[in-house]
């Protein structure tokens, strides 16, 4: 600061502005690079891993309570060698994707008609609202009775879980499309399907995608619920089976896998969302 005191006020101001500008540019650059973002977001996971390693090295918990990271890793390798882990992951991912696809498609369809036409809102609205109020696990006994312990019962449960976030966000978003924009569209001769694809649909794309992300998270939740209760394969089954055998290492492995897959599928939809928001919002 003292070095600039002999400058004219204007030059001082310029120098100050340049310094401030430079500083904010540098700050912005770090968080806007991929490397910088990755670095910041990996601090916490690494810290957790270190703390976990430390507590098991110090023997704070018994192996039955908290096995070391290495033991969990080895449990994973062991399951892979037995040819179990791949199929378990495969069947779980398959259930989630099929259930999500069915539930989300139905949600899109019913959300669209309920959001666009009041008559369908009156027709479906309160019934769907009541069905939505049923806690997810309450469906399990009924689904088991009706559909037995096959794939259908699990996929149906996941579809129920994926349906409601999509249905509610789509219906609400369509109901709240800017009336002035719709009117402008109508004033320039759009109606029916054309009005929908030109005005209403683009206007709700961002909320539809956030509904889809919610639905995907919900699908993983319902997957575990379904597999915990009635299954002989999958990550949920791995959880339950390992609990019964006292294999804490496998329980933790399953939890980590669920976190990784849940986060990965969500990140993929997140990329799609970013693109769509840039395109439509």
């Amino acid at each position, binding site marked *: 600061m003292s070095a600039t005191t002999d400058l004219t006020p204007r030059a001082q101001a310029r120098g100050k502005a340049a310094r401030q500008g430079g500083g904010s540019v540098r700050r912005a650059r770090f968080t806007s690079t991929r490397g910088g973002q990755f670095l910041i977001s990996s601090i916490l996971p690494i810290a957790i891993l270190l703390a976990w390693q430390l507590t098991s090295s110090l023997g704070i918990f018994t192996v039955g309570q908290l096995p070391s990271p290495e033991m969990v890793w080895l449990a994973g390798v062991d399951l892979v060698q037995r040819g179990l882990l791949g199929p378990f992951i495969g069947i779980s991912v398959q259930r989630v994707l099929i259930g999500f696809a069915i539930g989300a498609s139905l949600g899109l369809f019913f959300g669209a008609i309920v959001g666009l036409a009041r008559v369908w809102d009156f027709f479906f609205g309160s019934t769907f609202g009541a069905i939505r109020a049923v806690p997810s696990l309450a469906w399990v006994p009924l689904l088991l009775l009706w559909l037995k312990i096959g794939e259908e019962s699990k996929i149906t449960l996941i579809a129920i879980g994926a349906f409601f976030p999509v249905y509610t966000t789509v219906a609400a978003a369509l109901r709240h499309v800017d009336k002035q*924009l719709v009117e402008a569209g109508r*004033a*320039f*001769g759009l109606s029916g399907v054309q009005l929908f694809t030109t005005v209403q649909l683009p206007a709700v794309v961002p909320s539809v995608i956030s509904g889809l992300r919610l639905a995907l998270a919900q699908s993983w939740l319902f997957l575990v619920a379904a597999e915990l209760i009635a299954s002989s394969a999958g990550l949920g089954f791995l959880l339950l089976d390992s609990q019964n055998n006292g294999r804490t290492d496998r329980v933790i492995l399953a939890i980590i896998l669920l976190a990784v897959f849940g986060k990965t599928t969500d990140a993929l939809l997140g990329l799609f969302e970013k693109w769509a928001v840039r395109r439509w919002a």
Partner: protein
Amino acid sequence: MASSTTMPYAVTNTAFEVRFDGVGRSFTATNTRRGESAEPRIVLRDINITVKPGELVAILGTSGCGKSTLLRITAGLDTGFTGNVTIDGTPVEGIDSRSAFAFQEPRLFPWRSVTQNVALGLPHGIDKAEGEARVAELLELVGLSASAHHRPREISGGMAQRASLARALARNPGVLLLDEPFGALDALTRLKMQDLLLDIHAAAPTTVLLVTHDVDEALQLADRVILLGRMPGEPGATISELVTVPGGRPRDRGSAELAELRAHLLEGLGVDRHTTSTFSI
């Protein structure tokens, strides 16, 4: 930018007569409690005027007196009115493709570029290349060529308003409905856009209903000026003044005749006149 009076496309349009016959509009309050009778509130009543083909009529009135409502009725966007509105002899019974509307708000679609927004105003069935040329021409005329590929959120409020004007002009309509189209513009841009409107009107003599808050603007642009106002002891606004503006355009802003009309109209709007001379045409 608005100096040229040769519009390459403008020679083909037809101007229509617009006739208002005892037009009135009342709104019923929607949030009255059960049991209370909802008293309809009269906004407009007994509007009678015939706007000649190619005539430019300015509509003045205090805020909330029903100017936008009158334009919406003319466009067929508001069908809850009483009385008759005819364009070219046929009644307006719904959205009317013979008229084009530039709304009080720009109402641009956020997910479309400026060009795509303006293109929405093109008449249906227009040849693609011809349409593109017309949009480019209009963007040039309203001074938005440099922002043609920007999104509405990337342009200023005044630029958005000009885009909205271009969208209405793109239709090359028989009746042009302009709801305070220059409200958000700075003084210089406003003058340029007024000239543009006059140029377009001279080249393609469409019928124009122009709502404005600006008495000078009305006197500069219009053949006739309507003052919407409330008569003592009567509910709702009607045509309280109808003046024919003397002289061809462009008009001398300093003329005593216009100054007198201006003072008179301002008085009608509730603004005290500062001169003591009496009114006469």
